[in-house]
């Protein structure tokens, strides 16, 4: 492992980028919640609010050709991987201009050109797929990383264990990122796992695995940098367990009986955006004008995305059965 | 606007197949004009229009088989205001219909594909075809489809060889074959008959069977017969025909028909319809002429207002009708509204005929063979040409006494042929 790539280069521009990415995701999802109430967005809507540091931190160290496999709480990952906000918003609206042509909705955002492989809504179901993507890279001698995000709930599924085993067995270039937000829907980790440290389970399969503060984007980025670097060196799969917290319910229809408001507010106080913003302000690296500029730019991007989604066309019913199989010539 | 519907050519007709339109939308038509040809159980019948006007729309396509009463065209009568046309009924061919295999289509009488599709896509239509039968036999869809296609009244078929007596294709084929063999025995013909001919014959036999069965079931018949000397009539005829070309000659039948029509005018109780337990006499005499078709079966075509016809016009009518009947080109009005039927075995049949009344009519007159008999007149026996005219009548309406008077009247009229002119 070379030391040159293990630490992120922390400077003002870099940190402003991370901050803005997190603000983009936060404001985008706040808008989504509003649009959901207005019935513009339907189906399940799982918000990432509170967990932005994980996606933003990890994605900062990826290259374009690296693949991302995510869950149904993937708006943040999609935006951070470089999908346009227009395409993601239009997908929420079910429009033809959406990233999945409107066929997927909130839970199934795909962009093959960005190597963003969903948007997968079966818990742990995408882990074997990530293993396969990495297997293909290895078989074709391509030096790429496949990053697989999943929640701590996935660790209870067999596919988690099968995938970690296969990845290590075949020494595949996969970075598993566990977003441990403590609740699988409403089931706390403490009442579902005998071993509650996910990274230790990975270690049991021989993976190099660490845990980090998932509310601290710089820590996440640093861990991801270290792991990806090792993976690119041919050291096989790694796992990062990010301790994080979602500020909102599991989906829009969640009364949150399983946790206390105090717990939520205590986590909110150390939220990823507020944490980074305070640090930047305290260290004289962010003034009011700069902050307002970030907010303004993000607001503009969101407004454009909503307008784009609103104005986009719905797929005609006649095209219902397209893309079930490859269209024959 | 008037809707033209699939006409009923008889009480036993439930559906008809449009084989040809003679008009197209926009054509001006006049009352009595033939606008279409309809195929029925009894054969092809020309359909006339009853109003002057302009054809607005044709609602069904040739080859379509639809129930009686179903709209098939619209007519803008003179004086009607043109209205915006309602959406044309989609072509009756549906994509989902599965066409029959060609090898299968080949051994039936090459139905137009529209027919196939129509029946296949309109199960209700096919169902309606046999609604009249309270205890329909079981029949497989394929056999039923073939039966409908060939116009066979499967409701009247005997039980088949399928489970619970269901009629299956094999039964249908056997039935058609048997019928064909029977026809071949009774009518020696040179050319092999086409299946189509057999089917038409079959259809006709079924129609006849249905009518005569109903008649014998419902009508209490009584029968009378009267030998009538034709001496005077033939003398008159001989004289009339003597100098005339064959095309202007009159046959004895024309005189007899005239006599009958005129007699019926005096005895209206034999001329009309018995319906809803009530007899309704007809104002005019529409003589139903039972025409023997050479290929088998018979058709009844009406001679309208026969009481007003002279022997010459009667002869013209008879000739025209026989020719058209044998070519399958009778008009529907001729088929529908006879008020009484004459069954004429012709000059080559049996001595007399005791017929079966054609409901809802109440009488049928049978004309036997014109023949020579030893005839007693006063104290003498002499050879005389006679005809036996018999009456089958509905006892619910008339009694034997009335019948005898009717026959007597016919006799009297034939003794003074010059008065028939």
């Amino acid at each position, binding site marked *: 492992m070379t030391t040159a790539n293990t630490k992120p280069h922390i400077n003002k521009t870099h940190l402003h980028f991370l901050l803005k990415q997190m603000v983009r995701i936060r404001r985008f999802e706040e808008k989504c919640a509003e649009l959901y109430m207005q019935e513009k967005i339907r189906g399940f809507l799982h918000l990432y609010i509170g967990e932005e540091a994980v996606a933003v931190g990890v994605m900062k160290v990826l290259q374009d050709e690296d693949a991302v496999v995510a869950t149904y709480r993937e708006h943040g990952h999609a935006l951070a991987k470089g999908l346009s906000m227009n395409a993601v918003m239009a997908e929420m609206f079910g429009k033809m201009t*959406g990233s*999945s042509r*409107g066929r997927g909705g909130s839970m199934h955002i795909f962009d093959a050109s960005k190597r963003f492989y969903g948007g997968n809504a079966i818990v742990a179901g995408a882990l074997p*797929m990530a293993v*396969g993507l990495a297997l293909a890279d290895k078989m074709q001698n391509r030096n790429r990383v496949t990053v697989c995000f999943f929640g701590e709930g996935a660790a209870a599924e067999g596919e988690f264990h099968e995938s970690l085993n296969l990845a290590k067995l075949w020494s595949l270039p996969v970075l598993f990122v566990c977003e441990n937000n403590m609740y699988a829907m409403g089931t706390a980790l403490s009442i579902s796992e005998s071993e509650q440290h996910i990274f230790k389970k990975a270690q049991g399969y021989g993976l190099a695995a660490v845990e980090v503060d998932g509310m601290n984007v710089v820590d996440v980025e640093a861990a991801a940098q270290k792991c990806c670097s090792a993976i690119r060196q041919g050291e096989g799969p790694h796992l990062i367990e990010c301790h994080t917290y979602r500020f909102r319910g599991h989906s829009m229809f969640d009364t949150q009986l399983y946790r206390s408001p105090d717990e939520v507010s205590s986590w909110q106080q150390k939220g990823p955006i507020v944490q980074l913003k305070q640090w930047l302000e305290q260290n004289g690296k962010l003034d009011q004008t700069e902050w307002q500029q970030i907010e303004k730019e993000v607001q503009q991007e969101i407004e454009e995305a909503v307008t784009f989604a609103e104005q986009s066309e719905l797929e005609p019913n006649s095209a219902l059965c397209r893309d079930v199989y*490859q269209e024959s010539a | 606007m008037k809707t033209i519907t699939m006409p009923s050519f008889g009480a036993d007709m439930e559906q008809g197949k449009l084989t040809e339109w003679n008009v197209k939308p926009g054509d001006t038509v006049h009352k009595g004009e033939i606008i279409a040809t309809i195929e029925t159980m009894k054969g092809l019948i020309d359909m006339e229009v009853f109003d002057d006007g302009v054809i607005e729309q044709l609602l069904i396509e040739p080859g379509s088989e639809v129930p009686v009463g179903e709209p098939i065209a619209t007519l803008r009568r003179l004086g009607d205001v043109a209205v915006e046309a309602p959406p044309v009924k989609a072509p009756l061919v549906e994509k989902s219909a599965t066409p029959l295999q060609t090898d299968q289509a080949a051994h039936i009488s090459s139905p137009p594909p529209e027919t196939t599709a129509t029946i296949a896509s309109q199960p209700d239509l096919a169902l309606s075809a046999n609604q009249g039968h309270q205890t329909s036999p079981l029949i497989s869809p394929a056999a039923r489809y073939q039966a409908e296609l060939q116009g066979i009244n499967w409701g009247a078929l005997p039980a088949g060889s399928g*489970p619970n007596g269901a009629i299956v294709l094999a039964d249908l084929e056997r039935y058609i074959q048997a019928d064909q063999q029977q026809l071949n025995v009774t009518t020696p013909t040179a050319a092999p008959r086409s299946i189509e001919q057999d089917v038409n014959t079959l259809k006709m036999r079924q129609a006849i069977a249905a009518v005569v069965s109903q008649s014998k079931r419902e009508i209490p018949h009584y029968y009378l017969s009267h030998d009538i000397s034709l001496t005077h009539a033939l003398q008159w005829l001989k004289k009339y025909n003597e100098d005339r070309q064959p095309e202007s000659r009159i046959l004895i039948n024309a005189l007899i028909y005239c006599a009958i029509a005129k007699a019926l005018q005096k005895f209206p109780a034999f001329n009309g319809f018995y319906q809803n337990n009530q007899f309704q006499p007809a104002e005019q005499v529409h003589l139903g002429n039972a025409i023997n078709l050479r290929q088998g079966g018979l058709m009844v075509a009406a001679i309208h207002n026969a009481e007003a016809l002279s022997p010459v016009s009667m002869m013209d009518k008879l000739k025209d009708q026989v020719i058209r009947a044998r070519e399958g080109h009778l008009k529907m009005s001729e088929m529908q509204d006879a008020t009484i039927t004459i069954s004429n075995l012709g000059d080559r049949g049996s001595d007399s005929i005791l017929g079966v009344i054609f409901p809802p009519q109440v009488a049928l007159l049978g004309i036997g063979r014109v023949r020579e008999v030893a005839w007693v007149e006063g104290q003498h026996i002499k050879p005389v040409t006679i005809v036996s005219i018999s009456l089958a009548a509905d006892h619910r309406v008339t009694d034997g006494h009335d019948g005898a008077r009717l026959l007597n009247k016919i006799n009297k009229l034939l003794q003074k042929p010059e008065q028939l002119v």
Partner: protein
Amino acid sequence: MHNTVQEQLTYREAMREAIREAMLHDANVFLMGEDVGHYGGCYAVSKGLLQEFGESRIIDTPLSESGFVGAGIGAAMGGMRPIVEVMTVNFSLLALDQIVNNAATLRHMSGGQISVPIVIRMATGAGKQLAAQHSHSLENWYAHVPGIKVIAPATVADARYMLAMALADPDPVMLFEHVMLYNHKAPVPNPTDCPAMAQAVVRKQGPDITLVSYGGSLLKALEAAHALAEQQINAEVIDLRCLRPLDTETLFASVNKTHRLLVVDEGWRTGSLAGEICALVAEHCFWTLDAPPQRVCSQEVPIPYPKHLEEAATPQVEQIVTTAKQIMYR
């Protein structure tokens, strides 16, 4: 000797040849599954391939059906052409999530962006006294799912050449090999003996009744057809070959000709593919039917171990003959 005896090939050898050919033809093709390598394959299909192609392309997997089927899906997305062998259809249920929730959905769910050109092979069916967890015919479950294709080669020629078609297909293809077919022998086939993947084939022509079958039941249907011929019933036998999409054109043409249908399917009767075929025929051929469509399916019981009960539970020639005669009202 070569002049007098035509060279024979078993179904197993044909399938192995097909895999070999695919591997030689395309470096992106690889085979993975339980015991495909060192053991030589549970049904010895892949015997010798490890020695020929090495561990990098003949991959023994742990007993992780969901894991390695999912890995195959991912590899297909990543540009490979994986052949994934699942030991039997019963085990494939452990990978049902990957097959149904991922392979079948990804193209549509991504708006057409993702292709999953994977071939998943597995043994199916009863007849080897393997009892209730190794003998079932669940092809129909997969044939129910849009997004995947399901094929069931029943002849040596199809075993030899359908795999290449499946690999060439841009969509996921499930390939079912009936266990009773592996030792079936036939003269070495030509590619011309194997028509397009989704095409049903009339294996025997006849005007009286249509016997529809596939996979392991085909030979029984053919045998029954020969027995029927001795009783002057000339049956037509259709080999579906592809269970999804179904070649309804061939099916309907035959039924419209014979007016009678008997489907032979080793799946259980309730909710079976046979039921689907009967429904299709009822919908599309109603007016040409001369008898109710019938099915000979497996009895509604987990396949039992004893030979006589296993036979009683699954379609047999005699039963096909009897049912066909009933349909003929004979």
